[in-house]
């Protein structure tokens, strides 16, 4: 690493602030401080500026207002590397669960006929508006996701996506299978690993918070048989997968694969 400090910005769109909180809560951050300069991080720093050039821009949250579209464009212009952090920034987040419902309908349910002076929109992933260089997955991401991503970027390398499922990590941990042995609708087989099967280790079904595995390597066929045997309908599976994958253009195709890929 050169003597020049790396400039980092942590920007927030619409979210629960959990990714930033996870990052802020890492004791390792103290080791990072001497090597970086924080240009923008409103959650912890009053001297924060959204329109300064940075080496690495970390973006949390989904694009959920017209103003946020402008903000992400500005961040992209000012940043050498843009990293989308967490489910909201990468996949739109849980606020996209009903993405196919008209915004007006959701608005009416919540605000009635009232209006506010800002322009709301349906939550979308950051990559719908700007080029994103790397993703940090999870709701929230694991601490080691941050360490790995920033670690590789700071030494001039780059982070690689994980292409195997939570199910694999779960098997390696030797957990009781939540899906096969407890009969719960665990999404572990089709969800991107990296959490060390955190929830199944507590006996809880995976809800897929790290999103579907990329590269179409999800093990849909084996999941299909079990989900079908359990009596889950295609709609029920879609509903569950949409919690964190509503914007995945391949979702329906993948779920169809679950149903069509099984020999009767």
């Amino acid at each position, binding site marked *: 690493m050169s003597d020049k400090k790396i400039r980092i910005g942590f920007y*927030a*769109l*619409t979210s*629960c*602030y*959990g*990714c930033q*909180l*996870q990052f*802020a*809560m890492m*004791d390792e*951050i*103290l080791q990072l*401080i001497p090597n970086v300069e924080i240009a923008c*991080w*409103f*959650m*912890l*720093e*009053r*001297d*924060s500026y*959204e329109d300064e050039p940075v080496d690495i821009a970390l973006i949390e949250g*989904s694009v*959920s207002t017209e*103003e*946020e579209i402008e903000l992400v464009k500005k961040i992209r212009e000012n940043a050498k590397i843009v990293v989308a952090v967490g489910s909201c920034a990468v996949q739109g987040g*849980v*606020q996209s*669960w*009903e993405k196919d419902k008209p915004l007006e*309908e*959701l*608005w009416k*349910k*919540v*605000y*009635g006929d*009232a209006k*506010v*002076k*800002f322009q*709301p*929109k349906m*939550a979308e992933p950051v990559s719908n508006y700007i080029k994103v260089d790397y993703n940090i997955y999870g*709701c*929230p991401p694991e601490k080691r996701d941050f360490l790995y991503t920033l670690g590789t970027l700071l030494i001039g390398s780059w982070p690689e996506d994980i292409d195997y499922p939570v199910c694999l990590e779960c098997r390696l941990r030797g957990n009781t299978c939540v899906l096969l042995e407890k009969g719960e609708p665990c999404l572990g087989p089709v969800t991107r690993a990296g959490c060390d099967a*955190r*929830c199944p*280790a*507590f*006996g*809880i079904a995976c*809800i897929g*918070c790290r999103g579907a595995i990329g590269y179409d390597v999800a093990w849909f066929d084996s999941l299909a048989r079990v989900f079908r045997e359990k009596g889950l309908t295609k709609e*029920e599976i879609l*509903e*569950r997968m949409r*919690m964190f994958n509503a914007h995945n253009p391949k979702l329906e195709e993948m779920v169809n694969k679950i149903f069509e890929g099984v020999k009767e």
Partner: protein
Amino acid sequence: MKNVYLPITVDHIARVEGKGGVEIVVGDDGVKEVKLNIIEGPRFFEAITLGKKLDEALSVYPRICSFCSAAHKLTALEAAEKAVGFTPREEIQALREVLYIGDMIESHALHLYLLVLPDYMGYSGPLHMVEEYKREIKTALDLKNLGSWIMDELGSRAIHQENAVLGGFGKLPDKSVLEEMKRRLKEALPKAEYTFELFTKLEQYEEVEGPITHIAVKPRNGVYGIYGDYLKASDGNEFPSEEYREHIKEFVVEHSFAKHSHYHGKPFMVGAISRLVNNADTLYGRAKELYESHKDLLRPTNPFANNLAQALELVYFTERAIDLIDETLSKWPIRPRDEVEIRDGFGVSTTEAPRGVLVYALKVENGRVSYADIITPTAFNLAMMEEHVRMMAEKHYNDDPERLKFFAEMVVRAYDPCISCSVHVARL
């Protein structure tokens, strides 16, 4: 010549959770308008969980807010369990409260040391304080780590816990972990007390001194805590949680995605100071002594007292968690979970999140959520917060605008607002 005044604005209030701004309009006769702009986008949590399976909705609700995800999870769970007619065993209830206290400790430590203290020490953020305030930063990290670890062990992780489920827990920690938890809580007590002492020395700005109506949950079983089935106001009024809508009205204001609330037509406050104002008689242990000896600082008339009240709660809840763990260990081994039959019904839960009263009202039909109303502490507080920023602005509008902005931000930070939380937005 007529004076021309530009609005004094903070676009993005720093060191709070979520995105909000302050706008102060000054005219010839002083402060004309004060607005807290909540600019974070809407997330429609109630609307998107309608018609969804109960367990899936319960996984989504905590995502309203990371700083108090355990509060959201446990309040939603209680509302859901009340709706389906299930009451958890006492020992499960006790462990859930310990999990909730983990959230309380982490959240208070984070707020006090990393968000509030830099203002008083003259820094723009905690990361600059590391060298000069080693003890403070270490205390902050120790307390924060303790809270996070409790949530890791009982909730599966510190943010968005999945291990608390209908009927109990997915899995319980080993007995040895609970014993270790007790040990670490005992070790943390002096650190909590140090925090209290530190905060007794900080200024409480008298510019914002004035009458405040406080609302808090009336503690269950008469012991200062998090759960309760009645709401209590400092005007002496008490009512069952189910009747919250008869006393507290929500309304939309055009400058905010978050709604405002009035109690009988007026702004009110919730939070640590409101809990103390209404429920100090139910405190016990060291916290009770500290409260008695520092009543003059823990004033019901000043929002800045909320900081010190949080510090006092660090002491209280640390002791309380030890007692709750003892209670659980006396019944060990315990079953983690009971079968819950998902029947139709309606349930309201009111609990004390770190920032104050949190309300969940859920209706369940055919195993799915058919009605959801969630009101968060910050949404309750926004109207009062705006009043206090106005009071501060009225005293300082002639000052340097930067100074005024700083004071305005400090008022907002004293409330420890969870802006993301407030933008979950509720049904009308």
